[in-house]
């Protein structure tokens, strides 16, 4: 799923990527309808990429296993489906939530058509309003359930991966016209942590949707949370804070004088990696919020961490890699097209969606 795990750490301790420099291992030129900007995900040797449809590629060769066009834009989340022989991919688009067949369905003999790619249409978003179509949201799978914000609404839903049936739904600011969609939820140990504009930070019970705690933060802009054993990491426009899992009480807050609107922190081995969207990427102690290192980095980013490297795509166009311990920049890669998605790390490679294509980068 997007951000690797249900808690949303962006850290995969079991894989490694390129260390010192990168070269293109393969490029997959996608069908004309494809527009990729969200993080790919991997299951075994299959890479799934959302973007005006779904692409499934062989991770080693980049060869297409299947693809189909549809209103799917987010990073997919793989969910077990007990009534099916294959997994379900939860995915969202501006119109709502969908469940896709992870094997792509079946081709119809003597035609170029296939059936069974889409299993279900889940809850749908309202008709686009003044601001245009809603942005897709990133679904999360945990405990056999799909959790996702519903694009264009103030709701978070828990869905049955078999049928898309809503198991529970919670909505903030129900009766207020001006409010924001929930960010990517962080799910950990039976709790679903969510944040939203304005000032919203809430924990729901994963099984029932019952509210566990709710806090109104001081700042209006709140970014996606990350759940850790030490607490819930929440980034706001100017600062980063850690709150207790049990009741959302503030443990510490660190003001970075940021102007963050579209970044997400990563957490690995007791360190938070976070951009301030002004001029720096910071590594902060998860326990205290103290700075471990700061490096120049001027844009928004959703970093990922694997085997001693922090990989961060700056403002959707430049991939940069930093040493986890020192912050020393290891390499930088500029593709010929924009936007460039956050990378997915695996088997010594980085996989990225890049507008009309998908890239695999290996150690140079």
């Amino acid at each position, binding site marked *: 799923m997007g951000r690797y795990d249900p808690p949303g750490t962006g850290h995969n301790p079991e894989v490694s990527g390129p260390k010192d420099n990168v070269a293109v291992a393969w490029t997959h030129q996608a069908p004309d309808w494809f527009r990729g900007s969200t993080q790919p995900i991997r299951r075994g040797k299959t890479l799934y990429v959302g973007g005006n449809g779904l692409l499934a590629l062989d991770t080693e060769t980049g060869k297409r296993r299947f693809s189909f066009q549809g209103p799917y834009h987010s990073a997919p989340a793989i969910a077990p489906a*007990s*009534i*099916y*022989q*294959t997994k379900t991919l939860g995915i969202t688009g501006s119109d709502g939530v969908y*469940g896709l*067949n992870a*094997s792509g*369905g*079946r081709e*119809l003999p003597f035609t170029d*058509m296939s*059936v*069974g*790619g*889409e*299993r*279900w*249409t889940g809850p749908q978003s309202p008709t686009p309003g003044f601001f245009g179509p809603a942005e897709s949201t990133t679904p999360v799978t945990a405990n056999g359930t799909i959790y996702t914000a519903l694009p264009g609404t103030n709701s978070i839903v828990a869905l*049955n991966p*078999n*049928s*898309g049936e809503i198991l529970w739904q919670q909505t903030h600011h129900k009766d207020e016209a001006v409010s924001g969609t929930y960010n990517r939820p962080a799910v950990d140990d039976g709790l679903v942590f969510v944040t939203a504009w304005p000032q919203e930070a809430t924990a729901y019970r994963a099984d029932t949707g019952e509210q566990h705690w709710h806090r109104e933060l001081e700042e209006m802009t709140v970014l996606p949370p990350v759940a850790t054993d030490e607490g819930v990491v929440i980034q706001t426009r100017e600062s980063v804070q850690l709150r207790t899992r049990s009741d959302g009480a503030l443990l510490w807050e660190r003001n970075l004088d940021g102007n963050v609107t579209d970044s997400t922190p990563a957490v690995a081995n007791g360190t938070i990696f976070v951009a301030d969207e002004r001029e720096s990427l910071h590594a902060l102690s998860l326990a205290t919020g103290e700075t471990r290192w700061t490096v120049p980095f001027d844009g928004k980013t959703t970093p990922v961490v694997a085997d001693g490297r922090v990989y961060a795509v700056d403002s959707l166009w430049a991939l940069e890699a930093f040493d986890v311990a020192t912050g020393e920049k290891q390499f930088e890669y500029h593709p010929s097209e924009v936007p460039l998605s956050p990378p997915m790390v695996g088997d010594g490679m980085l996989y990225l969606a890049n507008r009309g294509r998908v890239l695999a980068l290996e150690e140079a």
Partner: protein
Amino acid sequence: MPGTEGDGSEAVSSPGHPSPTTRLSTLDVLKSALRCIRRDPVLAVPFAVVGVLVSLVDWLRQHDSVPMVPTDALSQSVSVNYAVFPQGTARTARHIGALVDLETRYLLWAVGLEVLVPLAVGIAGWVTITRVLDTHSGPRALSRYLVALAAVISIPQLLGGFSVDITGFLFGLLLLAVALFVLTRLFLLPALLVTGSGFVTALRQSYRRSRGQGMTIAGLIIVIGLAYWGLATVPVAGGFLSTAVVAPVHAVAVGTVFSTDSRETAPSPADHIESRDARSDESQ
């Protein structure tokens, strides 16, 4: 409104007893169909039973584990839900995509439900039209009727539904006119299959015999299609109402138009019913 009384359709000699040379208006056909059902209520029984089944299957689809969707037409502000063969509009549907890669027992369950309803609808339509035409056709005619019904139901499913973006008013009107023309020409297909015609003959005959009755049949298609949709929008009982109320009228209307066209060689459904009534009276 085309095909209604006083709109230029030829005069009817007496309601319920059209002369052999007259052409009925839409309203005449509907009145005649309702009269037939009132005189022979058994005509309503098959689709009443199927209506219960449709409602039950709607409920099962909503409560089992396999994905289902509300019927597309129910979200429209208005819809003409007409599909050649007499059949109600269910409130739920199951797309073929939901069946691919299902575990065997769920697949058998879901396919069973999806086969059961068309099978029951087909048999009900065949029985009703057979009775209204007072004809006797064998299992081959029934199987042809069921195959044709299955094709009408399943081909749009396999192709993902016939959905066309109408970009302009005139283009939309043209498209509607073409669709209505095709459906008009296929209106008598169920009756021809019931009377034992093969597929090709039935298509050819339906095309030929519907000529000259286009406005009447088009009116029937619109009224029946609106009624299928309108009753289906009733919460909970919509599937039952659409099937039990409209489908028998549709089936008898097909028989009525077919009989009118075949007047030189066969008596009208009303005559059949009256003769049955007479036989019944004599036996008492």
